[in-house]
C-alpha cells in the first residue's frame, strides 16, 4: 500500500491538469485559495473585535457567544448551508458551494482569533498598562503600542490554530463537490482507489505542517524579543511564573478546537 501510494504521488500525470482531471498543483492552489479568503475575512472580523473587547472590557459576553460556536458540528453546518444556498445559483458557477464553504471556514476561524486577541490583551500585566498611561499615551496608543505587542504571542497561537482548522476543514469542501485537496480523498474513496485517497491525506497533512512551520518562523521574527526571552544573556529577565503560564495555557487550549 505504501509503495502504491508513493507510485501515485510520483506519477507526473497526477500533478498536471488535463481536460478530464484537475491535477495536484491546481487542487493545491484551490485549497490554499479557499483557506486564504476565509482567514483574511476572519482576521478582519476577529482581531479588531477581540482587541477592542480586551481593551475596553465591554461586550465580554461576545467572547462567550463566539466560543459557544465551537460546539457546532462543522460538517452539519456546511451541509445545511449548501442545501439552503446552492439552489439559488444556476448555470456554470460554483458560488452556491463556495459561499457556504467560506461561511463555515470563517465561523471556524473567528473564535480562536477573537478569543485569543481578547485573552492576550487581558493578560497584559496591569503595571505595564498603567505605566503606558502614566507616560501620557492615549487609549489608542496604549492599545497599538503596548497591548498589541504584548498580546502578540497569544494572537499568533490563535491564528495558527485557526489556520490549521481551516486547512483541515477545507478538505470537507470537496465533500460538497468543490475542489481542493480533499478531492483526492473523496474521489479515492468513491473509486476504491486507496493509493489516491492516502496520497490526498498525505498532501493535506504536508500542507498543514508546512504552513504551521512557516507561521512559527513569522512568529519568531515578529514577536518582541523581550517577550520570547531571546535576549542577549546579560539582558535576560525572568518574566514567566508557573501561575501565569497555566492561565495562558487555558486560553491557548480554548483556541485548539476541532481539527
Amino acid at each position, binding site marked *: *500500500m*505504501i509503495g502504491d*501510494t508513493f507510485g501515485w504521488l510520483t506519477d507526473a500525470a497526477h500533478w498536471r491538469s488535463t481536460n478530464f482531471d484537475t491535477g495536484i498543483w491546481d487542487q493545491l492552489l484551490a485549497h490554499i485559495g479557499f483557506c486564504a479568503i476565509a482567514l483574511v475575512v476572519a482576521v478582519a472580523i476577529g482581531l479588531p473585535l477581540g482587541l477592542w473587547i480586551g481593551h475596553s472590557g465591554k461586550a465580554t459576553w461576545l467572547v462567550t457567544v463566539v466560543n459557544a460556536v*465551537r*460546539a*457546532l*458540528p*462543522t*460538517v*452539519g*453546518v456546511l*451541509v*445545511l448551508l*449548501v*442545501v*439552503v444556498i446552492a*439552489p439559488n445559483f444556476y448555470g456554470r458557477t460554483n458560488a452556491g458551494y463556495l459561499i457556504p464553504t467560506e461561511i463555515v471556514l470563517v465561523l471556524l476561524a473567528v473564535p480562536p482569533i477573537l478569543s485569543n486577541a481578547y485573552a492576550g490583551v487581558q493578560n497584559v500585566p496591569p503595571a505595564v498598562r498603567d505605566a503606558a498611561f502614566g507616560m501620557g499615551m492615549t487609549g489608542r496608543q496604549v492599545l497599538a503600542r503596548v497591548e498589541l505587542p504584548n498580546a502578540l504571542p497569544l494572537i499568533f497561537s490563535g491564528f495558527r490554530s485557526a489556520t*490549521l482548522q481551516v*486547512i*483541515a*476543514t477545507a*478538505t*470537507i469542501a470537496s*465533500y*460538497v463537490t468543490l475542489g481542493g485537496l*480533499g478531492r483526492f*480523498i*473523496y474521489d479515492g*474513496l468513491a473509486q476504491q482507489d*486507496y493509493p489516491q*485517497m*492516502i496520497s*490526498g*491525506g*498525505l498532501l*493535506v*497533512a504536508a500542507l*498543514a*505542517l508546512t504552513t*504551521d512551520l512557516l507561521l512559527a518562523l513569522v512568529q519568531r521574527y515578529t514577536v518582541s524579543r523581550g517577550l520570547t526571552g531571546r535576549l542577549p544573556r546579560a539582558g535576560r529577565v525572568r518574566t514567566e511564573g*508557573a*501561575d501565569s*503560564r*497555566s492561565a495562558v*495555557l*487555558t486560553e491557548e*487550549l*480554548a483556541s*485548539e*478546537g*476541532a*481539527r
Partner: protein
Amino acid sequence: MSTAAAYAVPDLAAHVVQAASSSPWAFFSYFLDNRARTLDWLWAHTWLSVVPVLVGLVLALPLGWLARRYSFVYPPMMSITGVLYTVPSIALFVLIPPLLGLDPLSPLQVPIALSLYSTALLVRVVADGLAAVPQETIQAATAIGFRPVNRFFKVELPIAVPVITAGLRVAIVANVSIVAVAGTIGMTNLGLLFDEGFKLSVDTPYYPPIVLGIVLCVLLALLLDAFVVALDRALTPWRRAVGR
C-alpha cells in the same frame, strides 16, 4: 456495531414527497420514523467521543509526568505532540490504516486517530498542570511524610485537576465535531445524518436529517462538557471551601 448498510432508508418516497416541508412536524416525524437508527448512531457518536479521551488521559498521565520530572524530555515531547496535533483529522483517518496495516475502511481508524489527538493535547496539559503546582505545596507534602508515588497521586495530581479538566473539556467538545467528519467517509455515527440529508437534497432541500444531526451533536457536546465540569467540581472540593 451495526453498519449503515444494515438499514434500508425506510419509506424514502414518503420523505421526498414532503421534502419541501420544514415544519416542526416534519422533523418530528422524521425522527419517529428513524428512531432506532438515529439512536444507534447517537450511541456510536457518544462512545467515539468519550473513549478516545479516556485512552488519551490514561496515556498522557505517565507521559506528562515524565515530561515534568525530566526537563530534557519536555521539549522533544512537546514538538512530537505538536506535530501530531497539526495533522488534519481527515488526513489522519486516511493515513492510519496503511501505517498500521489495517483495512482502508476499518472502523478502528477513528478511535485510534482521536486517541492520538487526545493524547497529544493532554500530554501538554498534564505536564503544564503539574508544573503549576506550587513548590511550597510539594515541600509541605514531603515534610508531612509523603513518599514520591503517594505524593503524586494524593497531592500533585489533585492540584493539577483544574488544568487537566480544562484540557478534557476542549478535547471532548472537539471530538464530537471531528467524529461527525468521519461520517462523511462512511463511518457509523451522527455524521451519516448529514450525509443522508445531503443526498436527499439533490432536487429540493430536505432539512430534517441535517437539523436533527446538528441539534443532537450540539446537545451531546454540551452534555459531555457539563459532565466534565461536574467532575471537576467533585474532584476539587477545596476550591469551594476557600470560597474563591
